[in-house]
């Protein structure tokens, strides 16, 4: 019996660009003491994602290099904040498990990182949180993030999703400022920070969990922006993550209604 050959995605795969960008962000985080990540946390996050991805792939008899697992782990280490080591491992495992176990028509339903983060943030509030302030949010950093983010979304063919999300976010902010009188600058403050752009350009642009057609992508991005704005108005602290989590469950319905072919992976 011959051993399966592990196949490496081709260079045209958009995940390579995303991986390269995320690696650069993670290097920035490593070089910034205030980011507060310890080597053991990096090891736990990356190790849990890679090992569980390999294990699930093996169980499903799929021979792929776990590029997605690596991407999830790098994003996880940027988003999740905990002084402990084990939440990174748990979050990584849950993220990858959701990718392999919660599937419709051959595609996973949730963005793995989104699922992992939401689960541990809700289950373990005394141990985990999200801390967008770790980035420092200086202008050169933001410009870099936005530029690379546009590139990553474009390579993933999900630029419309990101654009729609951004447009609705700002429209919602304007509406909230008009109706409730809060200063526009305050409502839009997150948009001047790094975490916001990571979400807008890297998380909601996941090709596997977002609609493929441009109009549907526009609608999806807009819907995430709308729900995000509503959750922000009620001061829910993980508003964008929860908005994406909830709306991801609608994508398989839409795919079936529109008669899209199931994926094979």
């Amino acid at each position, binding site marked *: 019996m011959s051993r399966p050959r592990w196949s490496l995605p081709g260079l045209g795969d958009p995940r390579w660009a995303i991986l390269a960008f995320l690696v650069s962000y993670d290097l920035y985080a490593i070089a*910034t*003491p*205030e*980011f*507060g990540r*310890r080597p053991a946390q990096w090891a736990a996050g990356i190790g849990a994602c890679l090992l569980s991805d390999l294990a699930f792939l093996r169980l499903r008899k799929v021979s792929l290099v776990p590029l997605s697992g690596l991407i999830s782990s790098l994003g996880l280490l940027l988003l999740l*904040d*905990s*002084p402990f080591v084990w939440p990174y491992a748990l979050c990584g495992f849950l993220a990858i498990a*959701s990718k392999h*176990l*919660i*599937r*419709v*028509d051959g595609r996973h*339903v*949730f963005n793995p990182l989104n*699922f992992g983060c*939401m*689960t541990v*943030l*809700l*289950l373990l*509030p*005394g*141990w*985990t*949180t999200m*801390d*967008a*302030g*770790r*980035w*420092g*949010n*200086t*202008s050169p950093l*933001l410009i870099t993030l936005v530029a690379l983010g546009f590139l990553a979304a474009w390579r993933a063919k999900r630029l419309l999703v990101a654009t729609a999300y951004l447009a609705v976010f700002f429209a919602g902010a304007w509406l909230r400022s008009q109706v409730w009188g*809060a*200063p526009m*600058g*305050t409502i839009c*403050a*997150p948009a*001047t*920070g790094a*975490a*916001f752009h990571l979400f807008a350009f890297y998380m909601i642009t996941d090709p596997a969990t977002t609609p493929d057609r441009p109009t549907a992508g526009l609608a999806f991005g807009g819907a995430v922006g709308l729900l995000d704005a509503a959750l*922000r108005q009620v*001061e*829910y*602290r993980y508003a964008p993550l929860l908005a994406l*989590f909830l709306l991801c*469950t609608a994508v398989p319905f839409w795919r079936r209604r529109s008669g899209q072919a199931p994926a094979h992976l």
Partner: protein
Amino acid sequence: MARPVWLGVAVAAGVLLAAAGENAWRSWRQPEDYIEAAGRVPGGLPFHLEERAAAAGLSFTHEGLRTTSALHPWDRRLFAYGASVAVADVDGDGWMDVYVTNSALGSRNHLFINRHDGTFRDESDRYGIGDVNRVQGSWRALFLDLDNDGKEDLVLTGVSGRPRVFMQRRGRFVEQPEEAFEAGDSSAINALDLDGDGFLDLVIGYTRPFDFDPEHPARFDIFNRSMQTSHMRPGRLRAYRNDWHGRFSPMPGLFPPNPVGVPLAVGVSDLDGDGRPYIHWAMDLSPRDRLFHLVAPGVLEPETGKMPRRHRLNSMSSEIADVDGDGQPLLYVTQIHDPGWQIGHNFLLKRLKDGRFVDVAERRGGAACGWSWGAKFIDLDLDGRLDLVVANGMISGRSDFRYRQGVLMQASAQRQVDIRNWPPFGDSSLSGYQRDCVFYNAGGRFVEVGREAGLTSLRDGRGVAAIDIGNDGTPAFLVANQGQPLELYVSKSARARRWIGFVLKPKRGPRDPFGARVVLALDDGRRLSTEVQPCNGYCAQSDPRPKFGLGGARPLWAEVRWPSGRRQRLDAPREGRYNAVEER
């Protein structure tokens, strides 16, 4: 295929809903999730706490600084500091008096003189240190004998403005104009003889690199550029030489000019027992605190890399005591633990042989106590083991500001720095209504027993100061609350409790015994030790008299190591009283 898949989706959604429900249930059933789980003491808690501030005549409510300027909408957030308490024998009668600071312009500080019957009388006007907030609000008070005349003088830092010196002359404090001090917010102040000239010098930490006038702000970039990174303005660490008679001059070059972080407290202690003190700066908004060793008169050596890196960047207190009775003091540094928002933990730092410090709070207790501020090691049941009291709570108000602050922390540094970009704070709440903690020392492990002990206050605590009001050894402590009444807690017990205390009178060097160490040998083999450093902690000065609970043991002998380095042994010191010891 589809059915099991949707089953999976339903399970996932169910898990999340259950998680959210569980959170809501826990918040309702266990609202004190910001404190580590309460523990049980075998045999029951041997003491309970009684709040007696009003009964003791210590009626005082702190007023925070309020402006009429453009800063007004953020007053309660910007000036959420200024409550402090100092315990000292101001009138020299051998009984401890209490001084509390006020921060609003035009408000009054209060000096409560001990009446020797368990109560106090407000004599601020007689001593001339009541009406001192006309130009600038007070933050931290420090009593010490600056001119070695045997009378306590006063240094008062401000919420903006310059620290001030009040010399005690013939029973009245007289402000002595002092231009040497830099101006700026300051809560971190401590005293030690830095240059070995026999007079107490000062170390002062300023929270901003500049001073500003809250009533007439010329600039609005007054907050840190980012609340979670070092992309912010550094604070200032300064040393001032006491040139006799309470005159000061700067001692440049002792500390780095632009350290990362904001010094909120400074602790002094001989951490390695070599007779030379260390200076520990609690650096808020920095991944590490700063530690310096006074290796020779006027020479400070930075202990780079010895303090552990922390996950959150907060650091508010520097409380130090020999908890384990091994002559190796533990250092307690407070941080913020607010589940779902800020996951930090207080540090209980133990010094290793190579000089590095490791945190043992997760293992030994004391790690989580909300938005912690001042802390004090006090033997609350006089069993010979130090317990720990921690004050907490940032700002109690109406609507929760945590989300809005969280939004701001996601913003660009340029946006964060200008206070006008902040949502108005108004009467909001930020990690408020938190119960202070009592960590009972159950043989090396700290068990949280605050509620059981009767410490149920939800006020915004800042400084914690230990005091013996009646000179009878009864443990008690004061909590200075921001914008709220002062509290006095007295430890009561039905059991007989035994203790021994010392009043130290140095003859060489400073007249205050700051830096003296007392070792007490007990007949059960234990060696208890304490160092006179009443200004450690945060925004509090404690009773300077070394005191030990004896439990069931008897004292055999005591040894005093004076600040001059001389050692003096006392055979058969008497328990149940303060033993006067004069340096020979």
